[in-house]
């Protein structure tokens, strides 16, 4: 039992962590938390199933097509729901505009795709039992994303530009950085990460429209635990949440595992409002 708790806990934890990273990546260049993050995870599964099953693509082209479609959704999010409300961040209009877009995505998927869970095929067929690919695939995707992001932020020029904008937007613009294009790029990147989460977790969560709001919440919990904008915190928080949830699931049953997660969420927020690993806060007066 311990092995299956560990396997499924780490696997869903990796998906939650990746959604958390999606939130953070969007947040870093725009100071906006977007409700589309969880929907992108859902879309990753849906697009994956669409390309792999319905259209019969091989794995690599299907993955690339999924990530590309998600990236487009990310760019649309930036243009439609984020850019117009950036002027008045303090009014929190972004909560409403991104929520509206997330609902549109969800409804569109429900009507054009299906409201029932659809199958997601095996990709490699390697491993069985607790070493089944549906368990290790999300973990590998999460590790690859983290290494990739670390490389991007530390070694590449565009990564340095992202960091500069996240650090100090005004100063970055004064240096002549193309802030708007970088923001769009970061939304595309974030969306691809969300899509990857859905694709890698597809066999676990299926291509199911109801995953959207679920991932929105469970992907946000690691962000709240780890602190806004803190990717390492989000990953640690994601795995902790996955393990906690699955342990509760096996030990006390499905009803109470979601209650346990919710209670933990509220308690952590009240005890450590800035997250367990800290985040930035703004000056008020």
């Amino acid at each position, binding site marked *: 039992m311990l092995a299956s708790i560990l396997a499924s806990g780490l696997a869903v934890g990796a998906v939650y962590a990746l959604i958390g990273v999606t939130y953070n990546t969007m947040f870093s260049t725009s100071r906006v938390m977007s409700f589309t993050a969880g929907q992108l995870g859902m879309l990753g599964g849906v697009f994956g199933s669409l390309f792999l099953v319905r259209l019969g693509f091989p794995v690599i082209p299907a993955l690339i097509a999924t990530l590309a479609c998600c990236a487009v959704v990310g760019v649309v999010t930036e243009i439609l729901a984020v850019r117009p409300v950036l002027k008045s961040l303090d009014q929190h209009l972004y909560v409403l*505009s991104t929520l509206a877009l997330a609902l549109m995505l969800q409804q569109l998927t429900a009507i054009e795709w299906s409201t029932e869970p659809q199958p997601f095929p095996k990709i490699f067929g390697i491993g069985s039992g607790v070493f089944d690919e549906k368990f290790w695939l999300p973990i590998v995707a999460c590790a690859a994303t983290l290494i990739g992001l670390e490389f991007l932020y530390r070694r590449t020029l565009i990564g340095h530009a992202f960091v500069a904008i996240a650090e100090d937007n005004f100063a970055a613009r004064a240096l002549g950085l193309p802030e708007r294009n970088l923001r769009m790029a970061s939304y595309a990147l974030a969306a691809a990460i969300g899509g990857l989460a859905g694709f890698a977790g597809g066999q676990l969560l299926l291509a199911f429209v109801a995953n959207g709001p679920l991932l929105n919440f469970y992907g946000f919990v690691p962000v709240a635990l780890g602190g806004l904008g803190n990717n390492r915190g989000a990953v640690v928080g994601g795995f902790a949440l996955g393990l906690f949830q699955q342990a509760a699931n096996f030990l006390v049953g499905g009803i109470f595992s979601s209650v346990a997660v*919710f209670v933990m969420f509220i308690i952590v927020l009240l005890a450590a409002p800035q997250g367990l690993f800290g985040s930035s806060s703004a000056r008020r007066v």
Partner: protein
Amino acid sequence: MKADTRNASIAAHESEGSWRTTAMHALPFVTVFGFAAIVPMVTNDYWALIATRAAIYWLLVSGLNLVVGFAGQLAIGYVALLTLGAYTTSVLVSGNVMPLFAAFGVAAVFGAVFGVVVGLPALRLRTFYFAMSTLGFATIVTQIALAWQSVTGGGIGIAGPEFPAPFNTTTGFFYFCLGCAVLGTWMTANVAHSRFGRALIAIRDAEVATESLGISKPRMLVAIFVLAGAFAAFAGGLFATLQTYITPDAFSFDLSVLFFIAILIGGRGSILGPLLGTVILTLLPEFAAPLAAWSTFLYAVLLLAVVLVAPGGIAALLDFKNRRPLQTNRAIIPRPALLPDILSRERAGANIALRGITLSFGAVRAIDGLDLDIAPGRIHGLIGPNGSGKTTTLNVISGYYAPQSGTVSLGGTALEPGRPETRAEHGIARTFQTPRIVGEASVLQNVMVGGTIAGQGTLVESLLALPRHRRDERMLEDAAKLALRVVGLESLAPVRADRLQHSELRFLEIARALMLRPQFLMLDEPAAGLSVDEIARLGELIREISRQGVGVLLVEHHADLIFDICDQITVLNLGRTLAAGTPSEIRQHKEVVSAYLGG
């Protein structure tokens, strides 16, 4: 004596006028509910059911409106509380645990409790966290309803509560729900038009300012979470009765979206707007049957359109009286002679004393060992170059910043550091460098917010419009009108505050601060952006305020104003006192002249 009779006659005249405005406010509601009341008489049962549903939704939305529309807290998952109420009443009634109305009472209590639990993150954290916690709650409540089969019947469901005669017919039940909706409207309107409603809007749009007025955000929010949760759960019980049989499917997230969007389409800070929004959104799928599957998509499109194009919603479209152009060449003529009427109170005669204050932001020492005394009845000027720590000092006194060392005390009692909401009760009022006002509220309402802590009545008294609530309202309105006459803005009282000029906002903030009947008044660059004439009148007003025994701390860059009216001046540089003394001493001070005054 003469003044008294004059005030009394004004009051009598106004109460007649206020009766008429109340009637004007009530007319649209009477029309809407009147139309609803004749629905069962002129149509069939089907439309009566639709109207019942609209009434139930509105009962929930009217409570939620205080959370979303007034307090600005983005609660997106209120279907969870509807579900909670529906299952609580169904389980209790169909299991014969208790009679129907007792079950509704229990449901309302549950709703209130969970309304607060879900709202807890809103008390300390950013908006997005609260939106998430309500979303999370909505997700898990449905899961629980599905999984907890022994109680909720799982996916098979459970029978809803049945009402006794005469409410067991379609029409009878409709009138019961309509009655609840009318009652809900009346109660939330009472709250909205009380000091609580104004404070909620101020928390939404000018949170920092509400702290300086002694308004406790957590207490306010908890109170309305209780109210909105109870309303929602009660509505849930009615919803279960209407459905006759409930399954988790009946409580899709789409319903949450409907409630939430009805408020935003209706317009924040309004009651009529969200009422119309609820009616429209409930009826929309009936008139566009082929689009029924797309209804949530349409709601979402509407939401995006409202946010991007018309943030004011229906209420802003109906706000005709604020479209009339204002007089363009209006002048602000304060009446300092009226100040004794508003500032008369017992004066303790104690000083505010700062001792050894230091405060660093990172490596920057904003204040570096500052001592300062502010005496009642004196004007103390605080000048210095940019970044010398003037506003920071003011923020330390008013509690926004906690200094790393040193104390702020008033007459020997230490003022709690980092607790701005405690200053108002000590009679310390302030204005802000950038005016912090509620743009969507009228000038009069903005000033009335300043007197929030002077009210005696509780929220429950306001909810039911009991005498103490009405007395508070009269007292606050009279005081606010007087304060507006003092600063010379009385002709703008009914105007939306965001239509005012910058200089008028500065005087508006002073009027709001006067509502606290302050012992001390701290002004942060009150003359910035004012014309020469206005600065002269401002100076006169400040001097008269200090003559009433109020200690004034004046942070200002206009050297003329400072040297004209101050009794005492402190010059700051790099967080330290460069010089202190009377205006004539400062004028002679070599370093000050060379570093700051020039010449």
